[in-house]
């Protein structure tokens, strides 16, 4: 591990200070109070935490930030260690960051420091002059002492670590004096066992409680029996006491009853009955008077009713005539308008008949046959005429078509004759070929003769070419002529065929024309015959002669008219009947009115008078009937009231007779006395019954019992005494119940109790845990014991390596004056030195400077050994060379420079000559001055 950079936020006098260090030898030079010791404390604080608040080396500024950071170069990469002041922890808040600023676990710092203790680091790696001059503390430091004796053994490089690991591991489980996991488990186990002991022998307690419970049960049973006995006695006395009160009241009642006159037969509620009878009599009398008054009024009303006598004699006839007339009244009123309507429609029908051209009157018209049969006949004639006309038209059309076809064939035939076919002619005269061939032959023969070669041969060649061309031309001309001849022959054959077909068409047209003419004449004959038949049909019906179509239309119109005329005739007949019936009804009603003695102007008035009179008659009759009924009811009521009066008077007489009284007043007085007597008597009976019910004894026996018990007072005293006993007993029973409840609850608790089981289970668990921990502890302690035994053997047999290293360093520091450093097992913590000349000196007897050199040598040995066994750590020396002379100071700086490649060295000094010695060894120099702190900070 090496320190690469220091960055102070605030520490002592340093405020925002930053400095970079070299990986090897460094010297920090500055005068006194420049802050060298502060820097040492800062490095210590960053690595191991700030000292306690009371420590002077804490260097906490009064205001502003407190802390800073340092950058370490470790085996596992760069590590920023930041520590800042904290209120909660005096050592400050630590935070670690890795190469890329990521957070790192605190373990990284421990790894970087190779698990070195704070004490060892302060004593050996970062120390000042004060620490240097004391060896006792260093020798007492456990790990140093072990290193002193063990680090040099073969294969024991890891011995301190192993010892520490075993100690740590075992002490985390158990220490004889501290409180650790196993101690806690054992304490807990002891507690559980104590709890089990304190619970005691639960079954014994249980059986004791069971016995107690049965004892309580027995006591309760006895108490209950006693309570039952006492309760019985008390109940008896209670009954007697209840009877005694009743008995006293009973005596008083009997005395009061004896004072009354004899009232045994006096009727019950006589006054009430008297009042009721008097009331009933008054009501009956009032009812009789009311009925008589009403009867008089009804008779007067009856005498006032009038009655038409004549009408009453002929009431039935009048009602019949009136009813008949009223049923015809509407008809009578409509007769005139119906007659006028029929007349008008008749005139219209006659007009229509005339308009159709009929030469007959309506009555004859009704007899014309316009039946469906006749209509079918007319339809037949008309259809035949239409058919004949159609045939004639078709024959005419066929005739004209045949004529037209014949003419067209004739024209085509003429045109064929007018255009005779021409035979084909040759395009080129064939005879010309022969002279041409001869000419070419002549040229072919003559050319070689006439012309010398090659002209002669050229001529022959050209002649041959011409001959070839001529041959081709001749063949084409011949082929074309042949095709023309063939075409001409085909055309001739076609023309002949056309001529033949045209001749056939002309003949067929002539035949068709003849047939059509025959058909036309037959149709004309039919038409004449049918026209005559139609005329005859029309004449028979007095109709003008018209065409077949019009004849059909006429038939339709005539049929409708005939139907209308027939309807008219029916209506005329109905009107005549109605007129006759209306006249008869009017006559009847007039006759009835006349008989009843009424005067009138017309039948309708007679009917009206007759209707009103009949209604009045009916009303008078109904009124008389109602009055009769009411008179009858009134008679009955009057009789009932009279009868009731008599009855009540009889009852009153009987009541007076029964009570033995003559007047109402006397009866009322006697009735009040009777009521009081009866109440007293009832009270007496009730009390007697109550006494019997309460005591179970008859009155006589009860009186005897009281006498026998010494009277009422003695009974009361006995009762009070029993009550007291019962109260005490109840209290005792309650106490027993509570005891029993407690006992039972306790037993139930014990029966369902899982406390012991749970404690025993817990005990087993704790025993198992304790055994396991104890085994682990024993394992560690045995391992530790084995290591220590082995170490002790080595102490006796081999010189520890650390002393050899210290000897070498001391020799170099003293320029060879001293050759060896020794330790004695019998005097732990003491060092001895051997001179080159052989003298041996204890450290205490050396000069101050030489002693400092010895202790520095020893520290350098520890440092070197630590570096070998774990990992190299930086060395920080605060002006430790002050007591060295120049020669030995130079040797010391040289030794430090030799260490520097492995262990970074940071030396603080205020001495120029020491600074120069470091400069000689090529140290990286850092200079600080008190006044420059702020400036440096600014520069940083």
């Amino acid at each position: 591990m090496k320190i690469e950079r220091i960055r102070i936020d605030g520490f002592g006098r340093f405020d925002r200070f930053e400095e970079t260090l070299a990986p090897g030898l460094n010297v920090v030079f500055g005068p006194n109070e420049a802050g060298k010791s502060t820097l040492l404390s800062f490095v210590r604080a960053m690595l191991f935490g700030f000292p306690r608040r009371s420590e002077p080396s804490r260097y906490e500024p009064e205001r502003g930030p407190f802390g800073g950071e340092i950058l370490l170069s470790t085996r596992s990469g760069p590590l920023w260690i930041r520590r800042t002041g904290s209120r909660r922890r005096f050592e400050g808040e630590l935070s670690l960051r890795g190469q890329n600023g990521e957070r790192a676990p605190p373990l990284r710092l421990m790894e970087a420091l190779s698990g070195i203790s704070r004490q060892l680091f302060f004593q050996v790696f970062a120390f000042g002059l004060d620490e240097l001059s004391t060896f006792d503390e260093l020798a007492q430091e456990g790990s140093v002492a072990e290193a002193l004796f063990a680090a040099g053994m073969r294969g024991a490089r890891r011995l301190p670590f192993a010892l520490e690991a075993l100690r740590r591991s075992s002490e985390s489980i158990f220490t004889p004096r501290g409180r650790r996991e196993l101690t806690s488990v054992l304490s807990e186990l002891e507690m559980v066992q104590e709890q089990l002991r304190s619970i005691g022998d639960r079954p014994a307690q249980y059986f004791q409680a069971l016995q107690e419970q049965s004892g309580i049960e027995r006591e309760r049973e006895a108490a209950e029996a006693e309570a039952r006995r006492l309760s019985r006695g008390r109940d008896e006395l209670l009954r007697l006491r209840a009877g005694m009160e009743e008995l006293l009241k009973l005596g008083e009642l009997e005395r009061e009853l004896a004072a009354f006159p004899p009232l045994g037969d006096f009727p019950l509620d006589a006054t009430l009955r008297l009042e009721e009878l008097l009331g009933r009599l008054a009501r009956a009398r009032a009812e009789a008077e009311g009925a008589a008054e009403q009867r008089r009024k009804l008779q007067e009303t009856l005498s006032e009713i009038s009655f038409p006598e004549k009408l009453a004699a002929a009431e039935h006839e009048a009602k019949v005539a009136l009813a008949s007339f009223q049923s015809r009244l509407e008809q009578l009123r409509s007769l005139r308008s119906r007659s006028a309507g029929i007349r008008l429609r008749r005139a219209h029908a006659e007009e229509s008949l005339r308009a159709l051209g009929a030469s007959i009157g309506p009555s004859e018209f009704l007899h014309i046959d316009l039946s469906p049969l006749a209509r079918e006949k007319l339809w037949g004639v008309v259809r035949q005429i239409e058919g004949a006309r159609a045939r004639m038209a078709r024959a005419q059309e066929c005739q004209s078509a045949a004529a037209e076809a014949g003419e067209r064939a004739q024209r085509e035939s003429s045109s064929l004759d007018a255009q005779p076919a021409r035979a084909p002619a040759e395009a080129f005269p064939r005879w010309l070929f022969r002279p041409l061939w001869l000419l070419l032959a002549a040229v072919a023969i003559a050319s070689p003769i006439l012309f010398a070669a090659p002209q002669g041969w050229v001529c022959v060649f050209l002649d041959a070419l011409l001959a070839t061309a001529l041959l081709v031309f001749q063949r084409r001309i011949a082929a074309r002529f042949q095709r023309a001849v063939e075409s001409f022959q085909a055309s001739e054959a076609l023309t002949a065929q056309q001529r033949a077909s045209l001749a056939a068409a002309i003949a067929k047209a002539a035949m068709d024309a003849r047939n059509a003419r025959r058909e036309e004449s037959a149709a004309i004959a039919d038409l004449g015959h049918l026209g005559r038949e139609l005329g005859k049909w029309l004449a028979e019906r007095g109709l003008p002669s018209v065409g077949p179509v019009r004849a059909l239309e006429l038939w339709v119109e005539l049929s409708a008219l005939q139907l209308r005329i027939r309807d008219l005739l029916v209506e005329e007949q109905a009107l005549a009947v109605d007129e006759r019936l209306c006249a008869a009804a009017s006559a009847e009603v007039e006759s009835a009115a006349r008989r009843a003695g009424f005067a009138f102007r017309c039948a309708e008035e007679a009917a009206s008078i007759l209707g009103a009179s009949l209604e009045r008659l009916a009303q008078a009759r109904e009124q008389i009937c109602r009055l009769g009924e009411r008179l009858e009811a009134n008679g009955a009521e009057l009789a009932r009231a009279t009868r009731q009066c008599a009855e009540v008077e009889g009852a009153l007489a009987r009541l007076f007779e029964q009570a033995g009284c003559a007047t109402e007043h006397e009866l009322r007085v006697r009735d009040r006395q009777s009521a009081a007597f009866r109440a007293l008597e009832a009270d007496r009976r009730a009390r007697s019954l109550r006494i019997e019910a309460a005591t179970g004894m008859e009155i006589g026996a009860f009186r005897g019992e009281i006498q026998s018990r010494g009277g009422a007072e003695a009974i009361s005293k006995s009762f009070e005494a029993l009550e007291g006993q019962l109260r005490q007993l109840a209290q005792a029973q309650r106490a027993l119940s509570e005891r029993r409840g407690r006992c039972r609850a306790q037993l139930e608790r014990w029966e369902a109790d899982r406390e012991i089981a749970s404690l025993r289970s817990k005990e087993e668990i704790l025993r198992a845990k304790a055994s396991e921990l104890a085994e682990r502890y024993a394992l560690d302690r045995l391992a530790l014991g084995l290591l220590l035994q082995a170490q002790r053997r080595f102490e006796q047999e081999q010189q520890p390596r650390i002393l050899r290293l210290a000897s070498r360093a001391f020799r170099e520091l003293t320029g060879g004056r001293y050759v060896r450093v020794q330790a004695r097992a019998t005097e732990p913590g003491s060092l001895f030195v051997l001179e080159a000349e052989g003298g041996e000196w204890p450290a205490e007897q050396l000069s101050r400077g030489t002693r400092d050199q010895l202790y520095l040598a020893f520290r350098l040995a520890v440092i070197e050994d630590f570096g070998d066994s774990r990992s190299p750590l930086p060395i920080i020396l605060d002006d430790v060379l002050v007591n060295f002379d120049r020669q030995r100071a130079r040797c010391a700086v040289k030794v430090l420079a030799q260490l520097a490649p492995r262990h970074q060295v940071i030396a603080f000094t205020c001495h120029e000559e020491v600074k120069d010695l470091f400069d000689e060894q090529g140290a990286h120099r850092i200079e600080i001055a008190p006044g420059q702190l702020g400036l440096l900070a600014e520069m940083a």
Partner: protein
Amino acid sequence: MDFKFVHAADLHLDSPLCARSAGPLQPLFDEATFAVLRRIADLCLAEKAAFLLLAGDLFEYRDRSIRARLELRRQLGRLDDAGVRTFIVHGNHDPLSSEPGTLRLPDSVKIFGPAWEEVLVRRGDQVLCRVQGISYPQERVCEDLTPLFSRQGPELTIGLLHANVGGSTGHANYAPCNLADLDRRGLDYWALGHVHTRAEHSLESGGLAVYPGNPQGRHIAEPGERGCVVVDVREGHPSPRFHPLESIRWSRVRMDIAPLGSLDALTDAIEAGIAAVAVAGPDAHAIQVVLSGGGPLHRELGRCGAVCQLVDQLAPPALQRSPPVLIESIVDHTRPELNIAAAASPGTLAEAIVSAAQAAEAGGPAWHQLCGEEGLVKLDLAMSRLGLRLGLSRGLLERAMTRSLELLLVEGEP
């Protein structure tokens, strides 16, 4: 006449089962001994047994817990209702002297007293067999009780005895005797109790001596099937057959880490081991995993909390199994991959350690010096006050030697 009887022993009712933490299975663990008693009663009824023999140590504690007594009365009451008799002798855990009172047991229950007794068992007018027995008057009975037993008639004769036959280690040597002693008494069937491991011995005279073992193992040192014995008697010859009944079965799964390269492989191997052991039958299994051997996993396991993490990882799925499995513990007895012979070359500290261990193992001052270390002495004292023993054994010494060598020679933090 043919008949059957049931022979059980060492019920240790209300005995807590020593599991470090039973977790959700705690109710099962608490009820285990009672559940077994109920099953014994059920078995008697199912087999239509003529009687039940209980050969001592019915209760775990001298004070015989109330729960245990009530449950015993309830179950024997069931048997009584069904006409099944019960014969009981008390042993060192529940001697007669520890009886502070009586919860009235059914009339059909016969508890043998401190003197030898014989009871004739009848069915109708016919004698089925003779049962002889004797209870411990106090906890320690150091004399041989077998001379008190002897055949009294031609019928099948059963001796009900709580005794250590053959000086079995691991159990107090109470009522000591051997098979020859039993054989000399000429009984047909010795219904024994006290030794918790099931055993059946044929005697030369033709008799049988049977330890049914305890029907419910109480800790990891009592692993495997536990139950009682149903004895079929045909034509006067008893033939026992074992019937497992335990509620919780304890088992050990041993695992050599040598072939295992990773913790995942170890986890898989342990799970496979558990699956092989945790068969159907009991209500639950309690399994201890013992890791042994040397291998690359040793250092992983040696890290602080590694074994606990392994338990935490394996426990939940094990509890989900049917029947559920409690991983009682994982014991790490692994060792580093260390060649001690090579490392302990002459002149090295390792050699000094090995020779120190050898000297201690041989006993004498070296051993006493090791054991006399202050911490160990004080711990032993503290533990002995609580009835515990700090077992410093040779095996532990060997492990200590390995541990110290490992720390010294193997690089890195263990």
